[in-house]
């Protein structure tokens, strides 16, 4: 039933004038994908830089709140660009993602990554030495940073894998 609904949705989306326009001009999809990947580069690097700082692998001489304030706020506007280009890519080729379980895995991982980033940003702005109070906090911080790195990498892997698992 849900599957039928989804494939109806795909059919409807593919028949819209916007979808036609995206499909007909051959340069639109690669261009959208390029903007999408460049935005992924910005969001991913920002998150990883802060995670590596939590592990004290980069910018050790700069306090964590400074590093977080420098890189994390960039994530949100760029995430909006990702939402826009991603949506247009779905409108152009709805079956490629909406009927593809890898796409839903990517979205689930994205939800986790967003929650982690929001949590990190909030905890640091509520108290600057939140992740540095004692050994337990430091270890919790390193755990969160590791999960964040793994989840972001998972998002990128899933993104690439969508191309290999799409419905025929």
């Amino acid at each position, binding site marked *: 039933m849900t599957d039928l609904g989804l494939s109806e949705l795909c059919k409807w989306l593919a028949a819209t004038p916007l979808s036609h326009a995206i499909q007909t001009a051959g340069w639109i*999809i*690669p261009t959208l*994908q390029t903007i999408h*990947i*460049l935005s992924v580069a910005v969001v*991913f690097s920002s998150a990883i830089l802060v995670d590596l700082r939590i592990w004290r692998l980069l910018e050790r001489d700069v306090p964590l709140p400074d590093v977080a304030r420098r890189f994390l706020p960039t994530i949100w506007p760029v995430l909006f660009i990702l939402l826009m280009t991603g949506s247009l890519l779905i409108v152009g080729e709805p079956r490629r993602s909406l009927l593809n379980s890898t796409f839903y895995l990517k979205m689930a991982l994205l939800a986790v990554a967003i929650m982690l980033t929001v949590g990190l940003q909030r905890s640091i702005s509520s108290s600057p030495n939140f992740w540095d109070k004692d050994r337990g906090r430091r270890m919790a911080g390193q755990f969160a940073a590791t999960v964040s790195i793994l989840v972001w*990498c998972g998002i990128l892997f899933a993104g690439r*894998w969508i191309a290999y698992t799409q419905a025929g």
Partner: protein
Amino acid sequence: MMQQQLQEFISYFEDSGLADNIRENDVLFPLIESVHVVAICLVVGSILVVDLRLLGLASIHRSVSRVTSGILPLIWSAFAVAVASGSLLFISNATKYLGNGYFVAKIVLICVAGLNMAIFHGISARDLPRWEKEAALPLPVRLAGGLSILVWVSVVACGRWIGFTMQVR
């Protein structure tokens, strides 16, 4: 003569068991490709941090050398992974890649990025201590930053276009 040697050199890798595995295995190619994407994203994202500083658009309260020294280890390690994974993808279909204009353009552009960086370090950054703490930097320095962004954006675009213009399997 040179052409033939190059051809032999390339087929040596392309005919290797490793290249054959990457070509034929259903998981290996996408896996290496994903590692390549992760590495490229880190390279582009972290170089952008430096470029935006050179342009005076971000991190303006830190000196240029502080921004670069903080992030350079990440840039170089990610670049090494990108080159290694890219080479593996390349040898799996070397002849086809070399015949693809976007692939050739991508390699040329990466060389341009390297040249731009070498010129920046060798010439524009010679008197770095004099201006590196200022928000607005000398014109050649800003040009180096702007050119770097343009080149890396083009590298990513070419990379994506290879996938649309070359049938791997």
